[in-house]
């Protein structure tokens, strides 16, 4: 291929090839009008990627924002506690941390009837309870002298304690002037309360229980003699509890003729003795 040099610049030369292309090439001391056979063509500059980089950053930021918003929304919508309100209809009201109702369900058929067509979204717990009580009155479920039972279920004991008082007071205030009803509040926590009593390692734990100091256990034949827990373990079967047999297995795992139902009364009686 032959190239005709058309224009010369310090940085490059414009050449015309035989196919009719005008090209920019390295100016190897060319002169206008010269015909050359080999050129070093200019490479097209690559466009800056700045705009795309901004786009990627923006997309990543938007994605992060979306994830955060979704997470916050999910946390806001997650049930934190439940209030079971029982008149005759029983309903379960789920609330989030801000006491905004996020779920409402009728537990029994009357409860389903009471909640049917009721919109609880974006309403506070107090308002939902008021409106459900009003609906119960209108539908004839709650009458003068009736009873409203509230059961609070939450993982946070503090929430149960505070709301036991406030919900009861609020309902009383709401019903005053309309009718008189008994309001009962029962608190539940997801985890049972556990009290740990520290015990010194050298002391025997025999006789210590959550119920306080147990009275000394004595056999009828050895009455009046000192006895401790170790002696009791090594001795013959002093405990006539039906839960444990000689081989250490409980009646729950191997029910037999002298099974759980028959021995339950005996166990209760033993339990009372320990107290």
């Amino acid at each position, binding site marked *: 291929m*032959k190239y*005709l040099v*058309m*224009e010369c*610049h*310090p*940085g*490059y030369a*414009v050449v*015309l090839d*035989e*196919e*009719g*292309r*005008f*090209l*920019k*090439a*390295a*100016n*190897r*001391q060319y*002169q*206008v*009008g*010269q*015909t*050359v*056979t*080999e050129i*070093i063509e*200019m*490479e097209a*500059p*690559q*466009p*800056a*990627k*700045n705009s795309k*980089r901004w786009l990627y950053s923006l997309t990543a930021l938007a994605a992060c924002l979306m994830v955060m918003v979704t997470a916050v929304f999910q946390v806001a919508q997650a049930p934190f506690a439940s209030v079971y309100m029982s008149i005759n209809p029983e309903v379960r009201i789920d609330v989030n941390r801000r006491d905004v109702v996020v779920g409402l369900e009728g537990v029994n058929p009357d409860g389903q009837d009471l909640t049917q067509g009721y919109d609880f979204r974006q309403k506070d717990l107090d308002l939902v309870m008021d409106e459900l009580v009003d609906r119960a009155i209108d539908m004839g479920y709650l009458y003068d002298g009736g009873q409203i039972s509230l059961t609070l279920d939450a993982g946070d004991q503090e929430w149960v304690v505070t709301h036991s008082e406030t919900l009861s007071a609020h309902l009383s205030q709401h019903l005053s002037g309309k009718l008189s009803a008994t309001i009962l509040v029962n608190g539940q926590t997801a985890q049972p309360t556990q009290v740990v009593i520290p015990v010194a390692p050298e002391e025997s734990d025999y006789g210590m229980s959550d119920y306080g100091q147990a009275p000394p256990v004595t056999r009828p034949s050895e009455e009046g003699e000192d006895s401790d827990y170790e002696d009791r373990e090594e001795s013959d079967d002093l405990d006539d509890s039906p839960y444990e047999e000689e081989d250490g297995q409980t009646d729950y795992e191997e029910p037999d003729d002298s099974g759980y139902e028959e021995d339950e009364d005996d166990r209760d009686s033993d339990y009372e003795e320990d107290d």
Partner: protein
Amino acid sequence: MEREHKIIQRVYEAKEDNRKADDLIRDYIPFIRSEASKCIGRVCTEQDDAYSIAMIAFHEAILGYAKGRGAFLPYAAVIIRSRIIDFLRKEARHQGDISLYEESGEDGQSILDRLADQQDHFEQTALRDATRQEIQELSAVMAEFGVSFSDVADHSPKQERTLAACGAAVRYAAENQDLLEELLRTKKLPLARLAAGSGAERKTLERHRKYVLAMLLIQTNGYEIIRGHLKRVLNRKGGMAG
């Protein structure tokens, strides 16, 4: 910092204006020569290919630079180094091979030229002078249209299909001299007639308007040497695509 800002400002101006690009390159010839010398490991003279490549690499750096790519001079240095290294590798691959087109001797003639014809040196010089004169005349006419060869090179078709479409339009104009006369008289490119007569898409011709203009001007009287160089284009039959 202020010096760097000034360079960047000049670079952005040079992107738009070829004359300013030339001025910027002239001002930085010591820097360009220094970078080229570092690459080849000796003092780089104007006769070295590395010098020419470094100069065009600096021009590429001007065109490709953006503020997000850091300071301009380190960026230009990287471009220069990579271009020279590419060239040296390519040369190393062809070391020992002799091209028929390779220029040899002081007159710059290729071996093929020497073998093919033993033209008179004075005849060659006269031909070159005549060609230069034609090109200068063409450049002057193009200037009346506000177009330079650099502009034409920037708008020259890259793809074969586009080149063929533009070539068809040029051949159509060469066969219809009234089109060329209209061009010279009105100073306007008769794109509609060109598109209708050649079958090329008007949009394609519009996109390469400056290139088509230069090629049509070459078809007017007085540019026989250049037309002789382009005989492949003008003698081509068919092969047009939109």
